[in-house]
């Protein structure tokens, strides 16, 4: 096996599966066999983002590949692609890396700018899974996987495992599946866990960052189960007012540029770039932490009305 070039791309191989399962979800919803919703413009935007991310990947992926190969050429160990233990090891290590990549992508604005588009739909269906980033390559989060290449995992192995993770995460973007068996929910990321991740309810914000294994969220304190009494409301804290695909892809970058232009100090600029999404110098904007704190405070009040009648 060529350690530099993957023999196959799991994502490319899975494209027919993606198409067929979306057709199935639409058909089952149409005939009322499952609960789901598809809005035409929203679907077009999600799938258009998926198509565009392929092109963006070709345009910006070269640097990531070159860096991975260069680091691997300076590796510590020789890890054979033919060893089963190596595939078991990369399964866990890649998934752990994904957890931290995903957490960073939510908790720091620079990387959120590249990831927010995936959360910008107010729907949660299989087409949402394909609402992928156009700017992830530029944001440089691929560097988080370089330590695995430095350890000695061949670039081809990394590419295949990353593809497997992405394909796994497709099927969990659905409301058509309620809950999986308890043992499965305990170990794996599931539609239920990921619905919580896509929810904008304050209680659910910044949780369930898992790729394949939910164990990382349980381990690092970011796990939040889906609660029957709180139905997820999907989207982002401040939903977009249009389906314009360029606005979906770049709105947070434009927001960062606008804030940087108005910055009065390096500290402010750093806060706008690397603070949590919603950070502002005077604290006048909402972050996930302030929204969660406000929600918790409201819950603590006896008989607190949300809105005066």
């Amino acid at each position, binding site marked *: 096996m060529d350690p530099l070039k993957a023999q196959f791309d799991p994502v490319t191989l899975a494209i027919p599966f993606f198409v067929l399962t*979306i057709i199935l979800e639409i058909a089952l919803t149409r005939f009322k066999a499952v609960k789901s919703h598809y*809005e035409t413009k929203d679907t077009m935007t999600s799938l258009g983002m998926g198509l565009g991310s392929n092109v963006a990947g070709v345009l910006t992926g070269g640097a990531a590949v070159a860096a991975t190969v260069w680091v691997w050429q300076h590796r510590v160990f020789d890890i054979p692609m033919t060893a089963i233990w190596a595939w078991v090891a990369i399964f866990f290590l890649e998934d752990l890396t994904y957890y931290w990549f995903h957490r960073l992508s939510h908790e720091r604005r620079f990387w959120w700018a590249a990831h927010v588009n995936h959360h910008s739909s107010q729907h949660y269906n299989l087409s949402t899974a394909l609402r992928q980033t156009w700017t992830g390559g530029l944001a440089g989060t691929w560097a988080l996987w370089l330590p695995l290449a430095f350890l000695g995992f061949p670039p081809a192995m990394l590419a295949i495992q990353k593809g497997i993770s992405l394909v796994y995460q497709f099927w969990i973007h659905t409301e058509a599946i309620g809950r999986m068996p308890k043992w499965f929910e305990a170990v794996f990321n599931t539609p239920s866990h990921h619905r919580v991740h896509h929810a904008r309810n304050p209680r659910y914000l910044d949780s369930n960052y898992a790729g394949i294994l939910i164990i990382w969220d349980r381990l690092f304190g970011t796990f939040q189960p889906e609660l029957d009494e709180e139905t997820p409301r999907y989207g982002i804290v*401040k*939903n977009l*007012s249009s389906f314009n695909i360029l*606005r979906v892809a770049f*709105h947070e970058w434009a927001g960062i540029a606008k804030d940087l232009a108005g910055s009065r100090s390096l500290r402010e600029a750093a806060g706008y770039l690397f603070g949590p999404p919603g950070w502002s110098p005077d604290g006048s904007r909402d972050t996930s932490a302030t929204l969660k704190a406000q929600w918790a405070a409201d819950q603590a009040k006896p008989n607190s009305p949300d*809105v005066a009648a």
Partner: protein
Amino acid sequence: MDKQFAIQFAGSFAAVALLVALAAWAKIAKPMSPLSEARARALFADEFPGRALDALWVTNDGRGALARSGASALVLCEVGDGYAARHIPWAQAVAASFRDGVLKLDLADVSAPRARLAFDSWPPAGAA
């Protein structure tokens, strides 16, 4: 871009067109009816938890609403089968352009730059 990628892209483009057409045919968006005052209040409560509404106006077409909450104007607009909400200073909302039954609000936000709300008149009496 090589030939293989071009073929794959063309195939994916065709698949996207098929899926979008299928979604349009299925008519399975969330059911939307014109906003009632109660529904608008519930949506504002979700969007701005803890904010008391001093006054509320639902648009003529039921596709949006505007509420006063202290010194803020809370704005709600229909987007597809969902909503987007923002808040701006109340004074800005009062002074916004109103022509031919449409209130045009500058929301000063890249992700939701403007809102257009249909009212009979604006600003409401005694609003300032």
